[in-house]
């Protein structure tokens, strides 16, 4: 035992359960041993069952490895065993905060394979619903980001708005979270009476509330100190990883599917994409707030331009997509959603690849985490917007 004294030759005592960050003194200098810490799978900062294995040197993260798959439900396999009507109810569920945008992607993919023309009114309503869904999603992240930084109030405010929006969306779709409102060839049914009025009113309320969120957090000294310059993402790294959505827009790249490959009637609308340049947590958060305003602009344009007419086409009882393959992109709230649909002519897809924004975002996260502080990890994970179900599918 005498030859393995702790201070001789730098032998590190293997720790018991309470092992700390060990420091050894070697040649007159301090050499620290890293502490291995599992953040998750059950942890308040991971929004679900995501695990991030980090090696800590004191409070500095040396290495970070996200471990995913805890919520893998095999949606891509399930989709191969469901007909298209069922798939729409299925894809609602992988990113439960962007339900409508997901189902829209599938419908668009099938419609493109079938070369189906969707009624004008349905397309406008699809835009309306997408934008409301986007706001719903962003409200969630605005609230939770504050919560993670220790500001517990914003989440109550944002959930108040979420409830209001969900209530009138429920009147049209019947769902509060999983809308299942889209159908191949149109929509489930037309908007109910009074929906547009409620929507108009909510849009006006939402505008003033959005300023409230800005006042609540952005001007706060501590909030700025916690987020500015934290987890700055370079645009080339972001693009290389396939990062999209608000996380990408914060880096200064204005890649948005609504601009670059407009679907539905986005080409007829004036789409604004807020962009910032620093790519840090603060910018990602500001982009989120600005996107709410941009979505409200779109919603108001839809209120004005919504044409009358039918909302769906007469479809055969079983929808069969002709043989072929196509890739459809939609701008989901968290980034670009993609559906690569391969059909063999049957009523179930041969293969449906779901490209989800959260997957790419989480893949990039170690780039930001390594070298940052443990507390910054929370600010980074909270602002690289992701939904674990969307990562794992």
């Amino acid at each position, binding site marked *: 035992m005498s030859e393995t004294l702790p201070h001789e030759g730098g032998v590190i005592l293997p720790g018991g359960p309470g092992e700390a960050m060990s420091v050894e003194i070697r040649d007159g200098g301090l050499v620290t041993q890293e502490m291995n810490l599992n953040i998750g799978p059950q942890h308040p900062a991971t929004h679900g069952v995501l695990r991030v294995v980090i090696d800590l040197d004191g409070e500095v993260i040396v290495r970070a490895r996200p471990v995913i798959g805890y919520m893998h439900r095999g949606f891509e396999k399930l989709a191969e065993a469901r007909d298209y009507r069922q798939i729409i109810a299925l894809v609602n569920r992988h990113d439960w905060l962007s339900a409508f945008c997901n189902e829209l992607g599938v419908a668009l993919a099938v419609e493109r394979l079938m070369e189906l023309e969707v009624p004008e009114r349905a397309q406008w309503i699809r835009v309306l619903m997408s934008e409301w869904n986007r706001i719903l999603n962003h409200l969630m992240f605005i609230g939770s980001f504050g919560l993670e930084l220790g500001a517990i109030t914003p989440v109550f405010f944002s959930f108040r708005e979420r409830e209001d929006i969900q209530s009138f969306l429920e009147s049209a779709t019947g769902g509060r979270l999983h809308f299942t409102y889209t159908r191949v060839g149109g929509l489930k049914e037309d908007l109910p009476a009074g929906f547009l009025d409620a929507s108009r009113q909510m849009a006006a309320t939402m505008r003033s509330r959005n300023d409230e969120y800005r006042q609540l957090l952005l001007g706060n000294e501590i909030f700025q100190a916690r987020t500015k310059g934290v987890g700055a993402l370079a645009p080339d790294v972001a693009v290389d990883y*396939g990062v999209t959505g608000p996380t990408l827009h914060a880096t200064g790249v204005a*890649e948005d599917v609504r601009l670059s490959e407009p679907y539905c009637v986005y080409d007829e609308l004036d789409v*604004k994409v807020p962009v910032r340049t620093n790519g840090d947590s603060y910018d990602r958060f500001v982009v989120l707030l*600005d996107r709410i305003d*941009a979505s409200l602009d779109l919603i108001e344009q839809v209120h004005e331009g919504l044409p009358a007419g039918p909302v769906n086409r007469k479809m055969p009882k079983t929808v069969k997509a002709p043989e072929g393959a196509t890739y459809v992109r939609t701008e989901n709230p968290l980034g670009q959603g993609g559906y690569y649909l*391969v059909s063999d002519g049957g009523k179930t897809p041969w293969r449906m*690849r779901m490209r989800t924004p959260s997957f790419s975002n989480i893949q990039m996260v170690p780039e930001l985490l390594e070298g940052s502080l443990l507390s910054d990890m929370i600010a980074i994970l909270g602002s690289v917007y992701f939904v674990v179900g969307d990562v794992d599918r």
Partner: protein
Amino acid sequence: MPTVRSSETSPPATRLAPEAIAALLAERLPEAVTATTVAHGQLTVDVVPEHLPRAAALCKREKALAMDFFDMMAGVDAGEDGFHVVTRLYSTRHRHAVLLRALAEGGREAPRLPSLTGVYRGANWHEREAYDMYGIVFDGHPGLEPRILTVENFEGWPLRKDFLLTTREIKPWPGEKVPKAKEEPAKADAGGEPADDGPSEEEKAAAKKAKAERAKQKAAEMRAKKRAQREAEAGGAQGSPGEAAPEAGGEGRGGGGDEPGKGEGA
């Protein structure tokens, strides 16, 4: 707030038509490109597997293409031929895209492809997922194991068509919506609306019987496995339980998954 508006950003003039991209790729890499198809305005380029990284690197670095954005990678079961891997690359500057399709070498037994991680960092997890779902090995990937989405000791490749949904394995499925091999759907679809009519009484009875039989078989297997394990432990160190288990498990799965769709489809 600085915003980009759709009214200010018309499609850039440098955007290439799918045909132009196809021509450019075929000209620059004639040995790599085997076929090009344009469908629904999207370009799919079939690439020789070994030249896939070169093709991707060309797409990324060629000024006129500048496809800097790694969009996604999807494995597709191609039946007897093996597996396709479809990679979508996109240019944020020119707003054009290409789908590179490569058929993994090695057929269904040992599919292999060179890795794209050297070209795009984002390819890493997508390739791990393709490995997890189809068992496609990407040469040059920094680490495909452990499996990214399924549990670490998961057996089988879930998105292959010969892998049945576990629920179907445990509980007989009277319907027809089981992922089937390539020839099957046409046959099944001739039946009209099978999704709506429930299983007949005979089918139910037969299914019940089959289920009981399977359970019996499984129990016997388990007993045999346990016995083997005990013997191994008693016998000494030559056969560890860890070795015995996967073997037995593999047999069980093989029995259920060798002939996809048959029996259930009829």
